[in-house]
């Protein structure tokens, strides 16, 4: 800027002024953009289990993970009836709903939930993902992901090896708001703990 300002030529100086103004505007705009990003980057997450699943540690882990990623988390906890999830979505309009389930009924309860949820016009575009042990068939559970996404989930993360797919999904929320991510055989955060936590979640 100093270089431009020292140019004696009026036109250049004028150009320089314009350039400076432009730069400032850009920076102001960028600054505003940065502020926007940091404000809106605190995504509001709704974490929930499905109606028949009483496993809790996967939900505790997910909440911590999303909070560490600067999210605001409402955690509905275990055994959540479909209506409670839908009411909470209508009330608080979270940016993302993360359904975590490890009891093997995810492909049944999750399917019923997403059909009901998508039938509510206000929630047709809400971002909703599901992850965990979606069935009781181990590696064969991958087949449920396609069905769940076809019925309205934005992504379905069936368990196997790591957290990367869910993390990259979190990173993509802003840039690709409506891209359906089908990540069969790639686990969610919950999944990382799901397998081991089956025993830990059973009463009696």
């Amino acid at each position, binding site marked *: 800027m100093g270089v431009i300002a020292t140019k004696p030529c009026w036109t250049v100086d004028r150009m320089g002024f314009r350039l400076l103004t432009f730069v400032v505007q850009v920076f102001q705009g960028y600054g505003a953009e940065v502020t926007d990003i940091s404000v809106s980057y605190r995504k509001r997450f709704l974490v929930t289990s499905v109606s*028949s699943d*009483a496993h*809790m*540690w996967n*939900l*505790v*882990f*997910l909440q*911590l*993970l999303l909070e*560490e990623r600067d999210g605001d988390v409402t*955690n509905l*906890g*275990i*055994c*959540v009836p479909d209506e409670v999830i839908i009411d909470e979505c209508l009330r608080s309009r979270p940016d993302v709903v993360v359904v975590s389930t490890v009891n093997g009924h995810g492909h049944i309860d999750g399917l019923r939930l997403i059909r009901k949820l998508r039938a509510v016009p206000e929630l047709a575009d809400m971002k909703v993902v599901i992850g965990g042990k979606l069935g009781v068939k181990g590696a064969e559970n991958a087949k449920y992901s396609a069905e769940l996404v076809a019925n309205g989930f934005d992504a379905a993360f069936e368990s196997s090896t790591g957290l990367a797919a869910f993390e990259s999904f979190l990173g993509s929320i802003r840039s690709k708001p409506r891209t359906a991510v089908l990540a069969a055989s790639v686990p969610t*955060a919950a999944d*990382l*703990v799901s*397998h*081991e*936590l089956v*025993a*830990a*979640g*059973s*009463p*009696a």
Partner: protein
Amino acid sequence: MSAPTIAARAPQTTVTPQSTTSSQTTAASQTAQPRGRFSRFVSQARQQGRLVVQPRMGFGEIAQMRAGLDAVRDSHATAIGTITVDSYTRVNDHESARRALAAGSDLNGFPVVAHGAEQTRRLLAGVSGEQFPVQFRHGSALPYELFQALVEVGADATEGGPVSYCLPYSRVPLARAVAAWAECCRLLADRPEPMHLESFGGCMLGQMCPPSLLIALSVLEGMFFREHGLQSISVSYAQQTHPEQDLEALAALRRLAGERLGGMDWHVVLYTYMGVFPRTAVGAFRILEDSVRLAVRSGTERLIVKTPAEAHRIPTIAENVDALEFSAAVAEDEAGKFGGAPAPFSDTGIYEEARMLIDTTLEYGDTVGSALVTAFARGHLDVPYCLHVDNANRSRADIDSRGRLRWSDPGAMPLRALVGGERTSKTSAFGLIDMLGYNERRFDREQLVGGHLKGLR
């Protein structure tokens, strides 16, 4: 029932750790005569110096459930039978259980109500008896229908509790669960042959709950049971991360049960680790072995075992029998080594902390039930990490460098002075995963690293 005696609030700054002592032997003699064949069996075994072992076992079909009970009865162990109830029955969805039975679908337990009292009696006939009592285990916050069926069947025993089956496993408001359990206790108490009732309070979320709160909740549930007419009960504790800490915890539980449940017929039951379980066979048997030795050294009467299948799937009948016979053999070995004398431990103040939690909780209400409801509403009792809306969920626990469970943040519980007042840093997501897998890593190392195999060559 009159209001419970309210003891003075324990001073929070004058914890005086006692030297290595325990009052197990004196406390045991304070229990009343055994009532009912469940308690008689446990009492006889104790007199003979044998640990009672019990599986977790439940199948939907009558024939398979019967085969399981027969196998446990015929095992080489001093065993009590278990019928674990399925998930549908736990939430009173008996219609779904009936449909599953009709369709021949697998259930994860025995649907008592769907099968009905007549069928359940037939299941028990010829297998349960004075030498083989059977307990029904469930997980229901609202077990009225289940308990009605159990009364009709004439069951020997069941378990649970207004807090321990509400906060970790249901969305039922705590006040509602407390009211329901009060009625349910009455059902059991009004029966001519008393049914035994075990508190599940020693196992909140399976892991990461420090001993003092587990003990306090188990004893408080025991007092609740007494308030509602039960005469024969057991208090529980689940194996955690450090054997000596567990030994101290079991001594504290026994001492407090002796003090607060005087005149009742009671005993202590230990659960083999209820958290993330080792995946290797060696690791799984080793943690089971540790829990058996812990039971024997602490003078615990009854142990509920786990199997090496635990980390992977529902165990088979044979796997359950293996775990019971292995436990019986380890118990005999341990009893031979220690001769029944309680093992020493260094006192870290678990007894004082648990007693203070019990006494101060009772100040919150005229009955144990109302005190529990208000104490949780105020965060005076607060189960770490538990998401139930009636739990404050402000307290946090972690595992210290020596492997002991401790409060990292007691929330609003009156524990600061007892834990040294110093909060540790907030648990991270992966820090939590690390702690949840602490025992899994500890016990799997042996087989995964293979050191023991080298020693065998």
